[in-house]
C-alpha cells in the first residue's frame, strides 16, 4: 500500500506545476548568474529564498484540486489513514525537492546557499501544505 501511495505522489509531482516552476526558476537563475557579478548573489539571496517559498505555496495551492482528488481516490481505493499521511508527506517533500533543486545546483557551488536551507525547506513543507489545504 505504501509503495502504491509513493508511486501516486511521484506521478502527481512530475505532472504538476512544481516541475514547471522549477524549470523556470532554473532558467532565470542561470541567466542571472551569467550576467551578474558574483558579489550580487549574496545581496539577492534573501529574495531568491523568499521566491522559492512563494513558489512552493503557489504550486501546492494551484494544484490543490489535484491533491484533493488524489486523496479522495486513494481513500476510495483502499488507502488507510497512515498511507494518506505518508502520501501528503511524500507529495510535499517531492514538490519541495523539485523547487529547491535549481537553487542547490546554482548556488551551492558558489557558496551562497545557507547550508540549513534544504533542511528548513523539507521540514516546513508538510506544515505549509497543511495550512494551504485548510485554507481551501
Amino acid at each position, binding site marked *: *500500500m505504501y*509503495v*502504491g501511495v509513493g508511486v501516486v505522489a511521484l506521478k502527481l509531482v512530475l505532472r*504538476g506545476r512544481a516541475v514547471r516552476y522549477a524549470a523556470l526558476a532554473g532558467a532565470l537563475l542561470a541567466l542571472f548568474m551569467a550576467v551578474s557579478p558574483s558579489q550580487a548573489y549574496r545581496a539577492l539571496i534573501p529574495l531568491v529564498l523568499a521566491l522559492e517559498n512563494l513558489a512552493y505555496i503557489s504550486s501546492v495551492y494551484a494544484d490543490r484540486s489535484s491533491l484533493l482528488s488524489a486523496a479522495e481516490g486513494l481513500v*476510495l*481505493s483502499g488507502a488507510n489513514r497512515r498511507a494518506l499521511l505518508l502520501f501528503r508527506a511524500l507529495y510535499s517533500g517531492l514538490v519541495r525537492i523539485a523547487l529547491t533543486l535549481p537553487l542547490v545546483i546554482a548556488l551551492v557551488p558558489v557558496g551562497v546557499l545557507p547550508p540549513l536551507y534544504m533542511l528548513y525547506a523539507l521540514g516546513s513543507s508538510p506544515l505549509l501544505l497543511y495550512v494551504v489545504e485548510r485554507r481551501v
Partner: protein
Amino acid sequence: MSGEVVVWTYDLWKVYRTPHGTVSALKGVSLSVRRGEIVGIHGPSGSGKTTLLKILAGLERPDRGEVVVDGYDLNQLDDNGLAMLRNTVVSLIPQDYGLIEDLTVFENIELPLLLAKVPREERRSRVMELIDYMGLRGRERARPRQLSGGERQRVAIARALANTPSVLLADEPTANLDYENAIRVLELFKRVNKDFGTTIVIVSHDPRVLRYVERSFIIRDGVLKEVPPQEALGSSSA
C-alpha cells in the same frame, strides 16, 4: 440469486453537529440486501442517502447501530480493516466519480490493484480486461478531464470493480449525465450484476433508476422503508 444477506444494517443512527445545532441524518435505519441483488434507495436531497452509503463503505461510522457487509462487522474493524474492506469487498462510486485528475484512465483503474500489491503483469491484464469490458479501449492514456461524463462514470465503475468486490455502491450515478449516457450507465450496472454477480446498491433521486432495480427503498428525513416501485417514483420527484 442465493438468499444470503450480504449487506445488513440494524437501527443505524447518525447525527451531525453543526454550528446551527444538530442534524439527524439517519434515524434507526435497518436494511437487508441479498447477494446478487440490485436495490435502489430513493429520496430527496438531504434525506440521508449519501450518509448511508458512506457508512456501508466504511468511510463514516454510525453513532449507533450495527453494519455487516459480506460478513464483516464494520463496528469491529479498525482503520486498517476498513481500508482493506474498501479495497476488496465494497466499492463506492461517489457522485463526482472520485477519479484522480492527474492520473490517466489506466492508472486510475490500476490504483486499487496497486494498493493491494497485485504484481505488475497481473495488474496490466486486469486493467485491460476492464477497459475492454467498459468500452474504453483507446482512452487508456486520457486524463479524466478529457473524458465525457459517461466515460468518466465508466472509468469509476471499472476502478470500483478492479478487485472484484462483492458489493458496489453508487451515489447518484446518473446525476451528471444526459439521457443517453444515463441509460447506458444503468444498463452497464445491470450487465455487471449479471456477469459478476455483484450486489449493487444505487442511491438516486432519478426515477429512471427504478426500471433497473429489483427492490426499492425510500429514505426521507433519515427514515428508510421498503416500498413498491410506484411509490418510490413519487418520492424521487419530491
